[in-house]
């Protein structure tokens, strides 16, 4: 384990029981780590489990198994079991700017909650601290008295970021923070997030399905499918040399705007089929029913993570040592 891992997730599993004897394996053995000051990107489509990973890390769910180490200390468990300091150290920004802020409370009230709880700001100092937070994220302090619906989606997300920063966090989990925003607003929010990261030394776990965005914000990328990480690599290697068939399928499907980017995409793999429900995980490798390179062993044995280079891991039989899945 690297000494400056601020967040290290090992063997994380989260299963939900939905009905009689039916288990939804949302997260099925995930290992991740985020170093100080870096942005780890987590990519996946719906049903991949990426949001569940985020919610489990932040404490919304109790993990079924696994550890979540924050600066070395295991905090795995629902938020109610964590100390206040731990709650403040890991913060999350949600995907939907419409429902992440209480529509019936002003921005000052929404920001006041973490300020009062975590930094014990008195009522007298509150307006000043709220104004400071707003300025930090690039919003005018006059927004304190406004309601969320009177400001735009991008600005609401910035308020959500400000709220997350109010507790002086170490790690911020950003769950698709700009997916609901237009491109020009997204650009503003991302720029602000990058600025804050460098100024405050924050570490980000950045979740999105937009690979083009990921290319520009993350230093390492992990891609998830049906509850497991199927590939993990530094960003440049991930995009230049995608190994896993799912990664290649995804990359070949994204719409891009220039011919130069088109060149970069892997040869078009016509995606067929859809991601199965995590209630019904196919035997063996979860991707095998849709995989253009599937071999007989793929539908029988679930591959383990294989390290193909210093920093590149992939979970696929194609890269396993000959004679079966690698250790």
């Amino acid at each position, binding site marked *: 384990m690297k000494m400056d891992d601020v967040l290290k997730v090992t063997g994380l599993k989260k299963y939900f029981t939905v009905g009689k004897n039916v288990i939804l394996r949302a997260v099925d053995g995930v290992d991740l780590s985020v170093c100080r000051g870096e942005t780890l990107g987590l990519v996946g489509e719906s049903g991949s489990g990426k949001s569940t990973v985020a919610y489990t890390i932040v404490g919304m769910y109790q993990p079924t198994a696994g550890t979540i180490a924050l600066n070395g200390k295991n905090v795995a468990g629902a938020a109610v079991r964590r100390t206040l300091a731990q709650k403040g150290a890991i913060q999350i920004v949600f995907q939907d700017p419409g429902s992440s802020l209480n529509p019936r409370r002003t921005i000052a009230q929404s920001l006041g909650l973490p300020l009062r709880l975590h930094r014990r700001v008195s009522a007298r100092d509150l307006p000043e601290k709220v104004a400071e937070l707003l300025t930090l994220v690039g919003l005018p302090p006059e927004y304190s008295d406004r309601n969320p619906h009177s400001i735009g989606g991008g600005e609401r997300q910035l308020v959500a970021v400000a709220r997350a920063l109010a507790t002086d966090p170490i790690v911020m989990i950003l769950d698709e923070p700009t997916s609901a925003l237009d491109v*020009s607003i997204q650009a503003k929010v991302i720029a602000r997030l990058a600025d804050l990261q460098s100024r405050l030394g924050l570490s980000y776990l950045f979740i999105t399905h937009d690979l083009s965005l990921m290319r520009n914000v993350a230093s390492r990328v992990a891609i998830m499918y049906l509850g497991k990480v199927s590939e993990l690599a530094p960003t440049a290697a991930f995009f230049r040399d995608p190994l896993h068939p799912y990664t290649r399928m995804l990359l070949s499907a994204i*719409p891009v705007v*220039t011919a130069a*980017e088109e060149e970069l995409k892997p040869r078009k793999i016509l995606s067929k089929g859809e991601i199965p429900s995590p209630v019904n995980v196919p035997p063996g490798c979860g991707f095998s029913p849709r995989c253009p390179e599937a071999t007989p062993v793929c539908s029988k044995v679930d591959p383990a993570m294989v390290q193909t280079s210093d920093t590149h891991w992939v979970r696929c039989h194609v890269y396993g040592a000959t004679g079966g899945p690698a250790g």
Partner: protein
Amino acid sequence: MMATDTVLEVNDLQVSFRVYGGKTRVLDGVNLRVAKGQRVGLVGEAGCGKTTTLKAIMGILPSQAVIEGGQILFRGQDLLKASPAAVQSFRQRGAAMIFQDPTAALNPVFTVGDLLQVGLRYATESRGKTDKAHLIKRCAETLTEVSLPDPDRIMKTYPFQLSGGMRQRVCIAAAMTATREVLLADEPGTSLDVTIQDQILRLITGLSETKDLAVVLVTHSLGVVREVTEYVYVMYAGVIVEGGPTAEVFARPLHPYTAALMECIPRLTGQGFAEGIPGRLPDYRNPPRGCRFSPRCPQSLKTCGEAKPSLLDAGGRHMVACYLRAR
């Protein structure tokens, strides 16, 4: 100017909405033209009026909308001045619309078969009685055309039993049961995963080619426009600011807004992207007198704020509404 094959034409459409304290002048001169079998993109950010334009064409604007001026010509007939019967006929046989959220667009208490038959029955009603068997056969055929396997089984299922991608296909099938000339697609892939969106867009492209179907594709994603359309209109704050062959507009965006928008798009090549466009959308209650983009435009001249620029020919079917290009 265009080939005589024009199926749908919108000329200088102006739409306002009655609100407290006056009116919001949402659309202020929308011009577009679609030829038979042509795929045209209408791209713009949230709040620019693209959905309002589509709804105006279909005649499904809410009650507080007021059409202040302009024409909507379908095969030469102005729908805004036509009789209700003619407008009904247009909706039954002329054009169909598919929406962003397929779940919300399908009535959950009807089976897929019921939903498809209703549309088909209305479309063929005036052509004499059609028997049920024929209707069902045609609906099953349509399901096959949209690549849904096992149509007979699907006809008996309810929308909630289908995945998002399949629901969107059902919506497209519903639009295709009767022969139509125009398909209005409002962000059809936005709520779907990237790989599924890719499938849906390829489906629409295929249908357009085989059935000579004109498509107006509304989206905020420039990547999607580049992949699917042959001609694109860029919209800002209720005005068409640029129009041209897709490849041409992407290679040489003439309008400052288009250029700025392109700069904000994250690139797969990883070269970073701009920090957004300064400023905000204008207040529709009190829109700027001249060009609506001028308050945010880095190159605006004095004339820009005084009089609205009209769409000028910039050569090769490329049009732009900007004084900077008029010189």
